[in-house]
């Protein structure tokens, strides 16, 4: 088992996903299985191999510095559970 129970709970907390102890037990096995499977790649010596960042020979595309978007506040908040005067409204966040 490469993932223990505490790690499962920590990952769930970081992802803001509530899980029960039963689910945690199941995930412990599943996550470990996935990581163990991926860990097979460690058998390959990649010391001198640069990371592969693309499949095709393309470079990053850049945009001109022009304002081409915006002024769609109605659309932006259309799916918000709660909005007021085009603001998203969320439960109070206290620092």
């Amino acid at each position, binding site marked *: 088992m490469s993932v223990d129970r505490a790690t499962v709970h920590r990952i769930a907390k970081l992802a803001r996903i509530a899980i029960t102890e039963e689910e945690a037990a199941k995930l412990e096995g599943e996550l470990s299985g996935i990581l163990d499977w991926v860990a097979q790649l460690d058998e390959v010596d990649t010391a001198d191999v640069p990371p592969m960042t693309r499949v095709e020979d393309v470079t990053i595309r850049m*945009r001109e510095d*022009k304002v081409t*978007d915006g002024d769609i*506040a109605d*659309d*932006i908040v259309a799916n918000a559970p709660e909005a007021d005067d085009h*603001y998203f409204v969320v439960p109070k966040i206290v620092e």
Partner: protein
Amino acid sequence: MQDTLEKNELLIEGETGPWEMIIGMEVHAQVTSNAKLFSGASTAFGGDPNSHVSLVDAAMPGMLPVINEECVAQAIRTGLGLKAEINLYSIFDRKNYFYPDLPQGYQISQYKQPIVGEGEVIVDLLDGSRVVVGIERLHLEQDAGKSLHDQHPKKSFVDLNRSGVALMEIVSKPDLRSSEQAKAYVSKLRTILRYLGTCDGNMEEGSLRADVNVSVRRPGDPLGTRCEIKNVNSIRFIGQAIEYEARRQIEILEEGGEIHQETRLFDAKTGETRSMRSKEEAHDYRYFPDPDLLPLELTQGWVDSLAADLCELPDEKRERFIAEFGLSPYDASVLVAEKERADYFEAVAEGRDGKLAVNWVNNELFGRLNKESLGIAESPVSADQLGKLIDLIKDGTISGKIAKDVFDIVWSEGGEPADIVEARGLRQVTDTGAIEAAVDEVIAANPDKVEQAKAKPQMIGWFVGQVMKASGGKANPQAVNALLKSKLGVE
């Protein structure tokens, strides 16, 4: 760089002995651009809620980031201005955390491979000394939205207008040793950014914010545990936050306690810092390369062409002013702190006496502008008018004293200095006949003083004063002095 302090005056005396402050800064500078880092929405300050937001900035499903070339160019220019290495290959990563003003659930940032590497900033201090502050790195990242907490008792309001605006995070090495140095560092960084035109440096609008890392140690000891004070948004507050935080840490350590690494907030009302997040809840950002973005690959040719177009930087301008116009390092530093001031001075000094020009610009003009809270752009006296006024002093048309009166008239009423001098009869009297008459008159009226002067040559000063007064300040002081000496027979 400063490993340990040589200057004892920077140490803080505690109850149990001296302490040394170690300060490092992370400055977030908003990139000057029209559109955001990865979308075509406007970066303009203000705007109605969520009006400068594209579907990319709101993180709607399926939206993909496309990088703004100008934002990359601005980061390169800034790197060049910081004498830093430009990395031709850099990577965008996702920094994951949850917050309502971060719709993606992650910030696109640069982690292990930033666009700019190590550089330096030369900081001039008030006492004339200089500190070289190392730059660790500069990377590009997205700004988050803004949360308003005062609109509703149980709700927070979120505006994403800033979401996705390009920021440069500029990280210094822990090379600063006092709040004074930290303030001077941010001022200098701001000056450089404004010269380059890569950030407007407007701290009121949040274009420049600093996270300040403070720790204390006994001189010579290894580094202590640091606390990070988040989002301090004025240079004065940076100084206050550091002073408070260093003393807080010293107090804890002297009472036998220990410092816990944490994030703190500065409260401008009380001048104190308070805990924001404890170490137990320290964020685990789970950085990984953003699969939506290819590596940022630059050509050396592009970097070279940006370097070729770079403006003269404050340090270079300062050196040139000293060499070209014979200015003192102090005067030159005052001028170059703001590009507009340096440009104004240069227009005045061009083809004239540099020292006379700097006295008028730094003392008379800046003094008056400060007094009336005006910026250089609002100066009622143009560089051309001030230059012509200086010409009148230089060619002997008016004395320096009368020039101040003319300056006042130009300031409040406008007009050409030469016309003002003619119209008001302020021309300096160099006609020896007229001066001689005035000298004779004063001598004739004060026989007792004449006797005294023969025994006490310093008395001549009194006579000069009287003659100047009689001439309304317009007599040439050298001519008056010479005439008096010969007539009174003193040396």
